[in-house]
């Protein structure tokens, strides 16, 4: 499933890297502890988090994630968007909490 399908169905607000929304999403991971995400997420994952600082871009780039979804309508820091733009890592914002974001994406990936 492509990232742009998820963005459209979930009405996510894309903050940068629109050019990379055709990326394939192969799975997902949820977490705010960066070392947990480093240890357990996989390349191609969509990462759902409440963190907004620029280290999320470093971790997502390291793990070759498809993109990052920030929950609860939280806004990424300015330098987070700058770093993401440089690395080509799409950042999207959802107004929903993590439980609902993940539930909806899981449904889209496995039942549509």
């Amino acid at each position: 499933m492509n990232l742009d399908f998820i963005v459209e169905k979930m009405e996510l607000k894309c903050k940068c890297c629109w050019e990379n929304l055709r990326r394939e999403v192969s799975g997902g991971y949820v977490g705010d502890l960066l070392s947990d995400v480093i240890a357990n997420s996989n390349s191609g994952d969509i990462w759902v988090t409440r963190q907004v600082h620029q280290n999320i871009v470093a971790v997502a780039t390291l793990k070759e994630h498809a993109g990052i979804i920030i929950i609860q309508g939280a806004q990424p820091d300015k330098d987070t968007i700058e770093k993401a733009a440089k690395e080509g890592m799409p950042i999207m914002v959802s107004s929903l909490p993590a439980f609902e974001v993940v539930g909806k994406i899981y449904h889209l990936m496995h039942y549509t």
Partner: protein
Amino acid sequence: MKSESEFVGNVSIVGHGFEYAGRVSNEIKKILLEQGIPEGIVRRVAVVIFEVEVNIISYAETGFIRYQVLPDSIIIEAKDKGQGIADIELAQQEGYSTADDKIREMGFGAGMGLANIKKFSDVFEINSEVGKGTYVKSIINIDKKRS
């Protein structure tokens, strides 16, 4: 005994610069992929370098990372000048952390860094002296069948 390496690199890191987290691991990752190292191996090396990089940024004044590509393995060494670790056994336990609020605010300090380095390494060594610094060595075998 001196072994002949295919490729060696050194990178210096200054402590307390969270804005640079991931810079070194990202650069080395690109270099190793260009060298034709299998992707699965490069990903493991990148995680180890990222975690040592974050440790230097979080706890040390200065440090350096040296990586050496051998025909059958990649050796990563990180040495820093900093506060050191009082209880190395305890520090390797997942969940144990001495991180301050600033480190935690940046999403780190969960007590998983050393555990992650160990998890992604085939051989892991650590030495530390309080008030002086820490040395970490990680060896990742290049098993062409597995990667």
